[in-house]
């Protein structure tokens, strides 16, 4: 599995520590909440709302430099919109990977 990184965030910050801290704070606070919403919607087979939350998570995946994972998330979102959860396991591995990375920041 590919490793998350802060390359994109560092590149944007150009050394602006306050921006880096702000983004990291948002990731730390939003990621657990969005995960909860994801599992809740999926458990209830509410694929439309699951797709919404996957869409939000997709952006976080991309800013953490997870390019391959992003593609997996794109396909998973499309499947959810079609009414099936194909790709769920792979997506959940990405979530775990991302959570571990964000927790140690």
């Amino acid at each position: 599995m590919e490793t998350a990184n802060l390359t994109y965030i560092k590149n944007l910050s150009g050394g602006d520590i306050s921006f880096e801290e702000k983004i990291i704070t948002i990731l730390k606070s939003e990621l657990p909440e969005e995960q909860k919403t994801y599992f809740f919607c999926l458990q209830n087979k509410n694929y439309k709302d699951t797709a919404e939350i996957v869409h939000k998570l997709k952006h976080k995946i991309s800013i953490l430099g997870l390019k391959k994972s992003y593609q997996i998330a794109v396909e998973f979102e499309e499947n959810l919109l079609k009414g099936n959860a194909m790709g769920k396991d792979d997506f959940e591995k990405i979530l775990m990977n991302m959570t571990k990375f964000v927790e140690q920041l």
Partner: protein
Amino acid sequence: MNCIIIDDESTARTILAQLCKNVPDLLVVDEFPNALQAIKFLNENQVDLIFLDIHMPDFSGFDFIKTLKKPTNIVVTTSDKGYALEAFEYDFIVDYLVKPIQIERFEKSIKKVEKAIETKPTRKATSGQENVENDLYVNIDRRLIKIDISSIYLIEAKGDYINVKTQEKNYIVHSTLKKIEQKLPDSLFIKIHRSYIINIDKIIDIEDNSVLIEKDVIPVSRLCRPELMRRLNLL
């Protein structure tokens, strides 16, 4: 240049604000997590540019665009490449940025916006005071009605009244051509006859001594013709 950011994701708003911070003369006046809050803001304020996320729950970016009373330069920001075709159906969507937005691509987008603003000088709004110059209030049946000056294509004298024509509506106002002429920007309007003032940007063609503007054919007086010809960008 003033701008606002509309995006339901705080990470996206923070990133855009950071990108804007690095552009001289670009000021983020506000950020909104949904389109409805932005509509309220835009009812009272004018901006040069809107960064707009298309994929938002309940009220999408396209829904927002349809509510805009005055088209403003919009840069669409989205994770979905699939909206590009629909986005470019709107004249005032200047660019389409796919997330995660890269610095170089963002800078290119700003250049496009600057170019779009240069070609539409009356759209420029950097303060509340300049809003007044972009709009004209006319008194009709004891109501002050706001008209976007740039939407006016023709003003016709009719006795004690003038007929102010816009693409959407005509307004019969108790006033004179002389009075309204003083309120209009010289860069955009020209008197081509003692009874007509036209918006030079809205001319379709000129034939002999008449101008076709929207669906109206307006006579050009001999006296006004030289000034009209001088104002045209003739090849």
